[in-house]
């Protein structure tokens, strides 16, 4: 699947006295070109507000965008498994009832094997209200695995998982990739991510700064240290001084490219 010149901007509320319902363009992603190959794990990285989640949602067919994606959004929803960031499952329905609801949306009937894969088979009768955050992440993963997806889109899948579960998830992702599933994963847990990704795509202010295998990205950014981690990569690409990292990532001086007419939401 390939993305060509894909652009999307959020419409955000901009009320004033005369137009209380007025909206204007907000942040988003701008002119993204990206190829996704079967069996490959693509890591999407970037600072907060870079557009990672927006890009993943566009790929999953949730936003109407401009530009070209080689498959239509309805077709993408069919073969992409989407795992959003931190779903707060709640309610009195049990895990298995909730999972059945999503299985119905795929016209799939066998749910036991996927629940077993994600380690939820012993918790299947527990109400959603009683699940821990880690178990909720597992349920989100189980939903993403429904329908034997060809592409898995995962937004911060490692959040809330204990170290063992994180390792189990990365192992599972590697196995899926070996079977030919393309995986797009966004995570701030850069150490775990660096171990499993084949390629990375670095986003900043909605723009794709650099993309490719880790080694070639390092080379293109002039990083000679083989051990350099993803933080250093982000710093090199965005112009942030590694010695002077602050939380204010919106300063113009840190922008390597032209500033878009984008205001933060």
């Amino acid at each position, binding site marked *: 699947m390939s993305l060509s010149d894909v652009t999307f901007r959020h419409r955000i509320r901009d009320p004033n006295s005369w137009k209380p319902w007025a909206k204007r363009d907000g942040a988003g992603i701008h002119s993204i070109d990206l190829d996704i190959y079967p069996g490959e794990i693509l890591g999407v990285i970037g600072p907060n507000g870079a557009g990672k989640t927006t890009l993943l949602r566009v790929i999953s067919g949730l936003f109407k965008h401009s530009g070209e994606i080689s498959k239509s959004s309805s077709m993408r929803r069919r073969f992409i498994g989407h795992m959003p960031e931190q779903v707060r499952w709640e*309610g*009195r329905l049990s895990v298995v009832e909730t999972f059945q609801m999503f299985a119905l949306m*795929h016209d799939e009937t066998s749910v036991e094997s996927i629940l077993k894969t994600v380690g939820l088979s012993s918790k299947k009768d527990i109400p959603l209200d009683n699940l821990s955050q880690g178990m909720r992440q597992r349920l989100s993963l189980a939903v993403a695995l429904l329908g034997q997806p060809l592409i898995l889109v995962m937004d911060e899948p490692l959040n809330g998982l204990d170290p063992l579960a994180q390792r189990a998830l990365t192992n599972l992702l590697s196995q899926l990739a070996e079977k030919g599933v393309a995986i797009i994963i966004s995570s701030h847990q850069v150490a775990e991510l660096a171990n499993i990704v084949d390629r990375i795509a670095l986003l900043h202010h909605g723009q794709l700064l650099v993309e490719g295998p880790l080694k070639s990205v390092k080379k293109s950014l002039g990083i000679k240290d083989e051990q350099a981690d993803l933080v250093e990569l982000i710093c090199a690409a965005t112009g942030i001084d590694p010695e002077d990292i602050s939380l204010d990532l919106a300063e113009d001086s840190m922008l390597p490219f032209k500033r878009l007419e984008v205001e933060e939401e």
Partner: protein
Amino acid sequence: MNSTLGLAQLIMCDRLKAGRMMVIWPLLAMFILFSSWGLSDPKVNLSFGLTIDSAYDVMYASTAFIIFSATLGAVLISFDGISRDRISGVLELKLSQPISRSKQAYSMVIGHSMAIIIPVTGLNLIAIMIIRYRLGEFPSIYEYSVYTVSTGLLLIWYTSIQLLASSYARDMGSSIAVGLGVWMTFTLLWLVMTTVVAGLMDISVTDLNSSEYIRIESIMDLFSPNGVYHHLLEMNLDGFERHISPIAPFFAAALWSVVPIELFRKKMESMHP
């Protein structure tokens, strides 16, 4: 169709198990059962001129209590139908599934509606037993069908309006505000709006039994779910003249059944998480 009904069934189960049902059940039980008991008293004297002669008359009179309790139940069940999922992140997952958004919309309307229709219908059956005990007669099957279908439609209308409002709300606060606002407008304020419209049209509001006022009230009722509900039920009552075409309530009922659901479906089609 199977997936739509299957989804609706799971949504209904979720709503029936929700903690808020602990409030809704007693409310419904008190309003529906107590009103049937009280109104089926042979000595009852109603202030609005209806004489209780039959089981159907009791059922019709008790709709005043249905309108207060069951419609509020519909609001409480469905006011966060979309906004809760939006806040928790579940909506993003639902929207990314391959099933069409229209099917999702229909399953939500059916599931949420059934979560209030089932308790109300069950309590109405008990109410009929009470009427039988007090008055010694059952309503005919036709009368019971008209009553049940009309009540079901009323609850579907309220549910679809609430889901539509919930789909626009960005947080729970605005969601419940819109929900209760709509409910209060149709349940409490509509009489005031009717008198205002009558006043603007130079119709005297001192005599609420004048044919001119009844006609304008009947027309205004077509724009309110509660009014259409009463129109449908009054067709089965003797001596009720509303001075409008008998087709008008059916036409209004069809519009109330289609327009909110269709608007909700369209909103679902273009919805972002």
